[in-house]
């Protein structure tokens, strides 16, 4: 995988992860182009598209788009499930995750991603193992409350 972008329906970038070295300028350009391309697509369209010499795999969860760029030889369907597994990880960690969780706890979203994917490859697919690693760190910390409301990504709350 070359990069992963999370952005809202309004085109606001919520998370970006680059697995290939690119200049800031290039990253901004890619982001702008891709956000535009994906947002222009209609709901029933297929989740894959060719873009430059890459394959784009994307999926929308509630207000947020998850978008991955993979190479020619890479498997589209498994990438779609990488996205889903990441959403599940976030959901399990935050409890019915929503866009605001990712905005206010962007650093956590990064940490979870690093445990799941490293260098653009799947590192650990077991949900248990990924969350164990994250929660170990949290154990040391106090819990604080913040105030916000929003809708969860996954319709079925706490299905697992």
């Amino acid at each position, binding site marked *: 995988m070359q990069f992963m972008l999370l952005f809202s329906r309004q085109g606001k*970038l919520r998370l*970006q992860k680059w*697995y290939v*070295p690119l200049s*800031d300028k290039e990253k*901004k350009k890619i982001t702008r182009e891709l956000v535009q391309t994906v947002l222009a697509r*209609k709901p*029933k*369209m*297929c*989740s*894959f*598209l*060719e873009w430059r*010499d890459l394959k784009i795999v994307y999926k929308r969860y509630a207000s947020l788009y998850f978008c991955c760029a993979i190479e*020619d*030889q890479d*498997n*589209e*369907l*498994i990438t*779609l*499930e*990488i996205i*889903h597994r990441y959403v599940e990880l976030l959901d399990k960690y*935050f*409890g019915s995750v929503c866009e605001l*969780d990712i*905005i*206010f*706890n*962007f*650093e956590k979203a*990064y*940490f979870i991603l*690093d445990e799941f994917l*490293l*260098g653009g*490859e*799947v*590192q*650990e*697919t*077991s*949900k*248990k*193992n990924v969350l164990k*690693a994250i929660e170990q*760190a*949290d154990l*040391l*910390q*106090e*819990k*604080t*409350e*913040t*105030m*916000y*409301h929003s809708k969860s990504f996954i319709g079925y709350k706490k299905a697992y």
Partner: protein
Amino acid sequence: MPAVSKGDGMRGLAVFISDIRNCKSKEAEIKRINKELANIRSKFKGDKALDGYSKKKYVCKLLFIFLLGHDIDFGHMEAVNLLSSNRYTEKQIGYLFISVLVNSNSELIRLINNAIKNDLASRNPTFMGLALHCIANVGSREMAEAFAGEIPKILVAGDTMDSVKQSAALCLLRLYRTSPDLVPMGDWTSRVVHLLNDQHLGVVTAATSLITTLAQKNPEEFKTSVSLAVSRLSRIVTSASTDLQDYTYYFVPAPWLSVKLLRLLQCYPPPEDPAVRGRLTECLETILNKAQEPPKSKKVQHSNAKNAVLFEAISLIIHHDSEPNLLVRACNQLGQFLQHRETNLRYLALESMCTLASSEFSHEAVKTHIETVINALKTERDVSVRQRAVDLLYAMCDRSNAQQIVAEMLSYLETADYSIREEIVLKVAILAEKYAVDYTWYVDTILNLIRIAGDYVSEEVWYRVIQIVINRDDVQGYAAKTVFEALQAPACHENLVKVGGYILGEFGNLIAGDPRSSPLIQFNLLHSKFHLCSVPTRALLLSTYIKFVNLFPEVKATIQDVLRSDSQLKNADVELQQRAVEYLRLSTVASTDILATVLEEMPPFPERESSILAKLKKKKGPSTVTDLEETKRERSIDVNGGPEPVPASTSAASTPSPSADLLGLGAVPPAPTGPPPSSGGGLLVDVFSDSASAVAPLAPGSEDNFARFVCKNNGVLFENQLLQIGLKSEFRQNLGRMFIFYGNKTSTQFLNFTPTLICADDLQTNLNLQTKPVDPTVDGGAQVQQVVNIECISDFTEAPVLNIQFRYGGTFQNVSVKLPITLNKFFQPTEMASQDFFQRWKQLSNPQQEVQNIFKAKHPMDTEITKAKIIGFGSALLEEVDPNPANFVGAGIIHTKTTQIGCLLRLEPNLQAQMYRLTLRTSKDTVSQRLCELLSEQF
């Protein structure tokens, strides 16, 4: 309802984020950010030392600001300080900041590397994990220099924790991608391979990615991974859906690992060991079988994961391309997906079938789905799916279905999305050329392309149609007629004007006999478009006009008037002005002879890889097109005009000098600006030439090729896989000169290259040939030229034989072809009136002087083509001589050193019977006989 934020909440950060979100405008946001930046800066610069928590909070705020899209130029040092904190979360934020924001600040990198080194040495698995993540995220060369030696040790050490092993494997992978030279192979590689056997599936998952990447570059070193991967895969696919616990995903056992293992196996050919091979085949069959089982869950995640493995398995089957049974099963499976209700599956099935189409085992099976694919083209609502359908149609196209596929693509083109039109145009152009059996179909197709999608027809496409028309005399008359008709449309695309201008300039004479397309009408038609065209097109039309002056003396005055007008002679565009001045002058000062030489018909274009194909490759990236093309080329070796490998040196003459590139035709040699190059004119390939095997005495097809040169002087005489022989010759009176071009089509040198001219005994006395030996080595891709000086002493019947011997690789090659030096080459045309003709005809009434032949037409009976052939034969074509206007009569003199022989000929076509009667009368019986033989073969 308040949501609980887990972990260490940073209240200040949350407040700041809320503030930003509450900003009503971009300006307010920027103001708030600037305020915060000022605050952080003063905190960092302040006298009071910040505690770890504050540092973490501010660094985190900076990160947030950066992620909003603002530039951050400070805080790096504070982040680096956090790295050496003993508190996990502070360290974590420090590493995150570095991972996201690092730049190649060497000072900083040293400090960062230092901190990483300490954490790697700490033996604390969580700290080690953070350090490895940072290396994997940054992956810079400096980091590779510092850690590429250390990480393999961590990876294979017996006491390393599983989670650290996983990170180490992918960290090493990232470093290998950035700086492969810095990751030395060594003892560790064999131990890494054995990680495929690890008990921990997470370790296997991470290690498989690393091994795959390393194996791609060092296949030998990682060969043992094949059998390990097969047995691991086998254990996974046969396991029950609950066996793998948390590694089972929606009832699919370890889908990510399965995909990775199948991917690893694609780095290698099918396993040699029959046991391993058998086991792998079983795995693949199991995966295919599972696709037919009822789903274990209705969730899309289940079917996606299952099908991800299936598609990867199909990729492996295609990669191996060795099990017809599996290939056909794969094709059937994809066929089912073509009609699946999930758009994603339809998309992937189309994509995957594209590669299946290039396998000889499954090509036919893919073709059976043509109707479904065509339907997809018409009904899919998503352009990216339609695009895949176009790709697949292109891939499955062969001679049997080319007409249908091209027609469907053309009709789709009318409504196609703008984003993919150009590509469709290229594909149609390539298919039409490649699979044309009937070149009139090719011409029609390209003109349709221009009509439907003129804007998307790139230069390569219209250059190509001109190249093909020029190289094939059987289509020239038709092309002229068709473009003439197409130009009648009140509004036609400029690309049509270009093609039309060029073709009429070359071959307008072939239709000029029809009063509806007389020279003046042709000229007026073209000139009516002139003022609407861009400068390059107008320049091209001016060249057409000067060619008309040569072809049709009757319109010379009209054209001169046009050239002389102020809008041309004083045109602001220097190119147009120059052409007008030069062409006007040329038409005034040059004699008909000179004009005819300068504006002689274009010589055939050197054959090279179709420039359109090159363009498509460029557009799609080499991997997608090349493989397909290579395999297809091999399968359909008999394809006329298919793209052939190019000799590297197609000689300098075909590369126009900057000043010569007036026509804007790029690689096309310009004709009207000077006489065609008389030497080194490149390989003169005729696309029709039969590929013959190199066996002496006479190569098969040699007779046919020989006959094709009776009425023309230039072209390809012989071509096989190795060698191409092109000719270019000129004759005057009883003398001639022939340039023979030997092209080495391979990349290997020819040694002892010896062409020899052989004349039978009696021929030797009648024909005098002189030549010099050529260089005995011909480099791969190079071309050598040989000049033969010819003198006709007396009339002759046989033809000399050209024998070529050389060594290619280890083998001796020996080729013989008949050299087309024929008696009619020494013809000089004679114009005469009807009365004179019949008077002479009667004088040659001695029975031996007349030879007559009645024969069936071998080609369509086209008046214009017949005329062109009689002129090409060398005699004058006498109009209004024969009382029957359907008949053709000609006259000329054969020049030999010893004597001159007057010749008269008459050709009477019988359209109904599709027959001809040819009568030759000359002053010498052998000449009558020979000329009659030669000319009879031409119709």
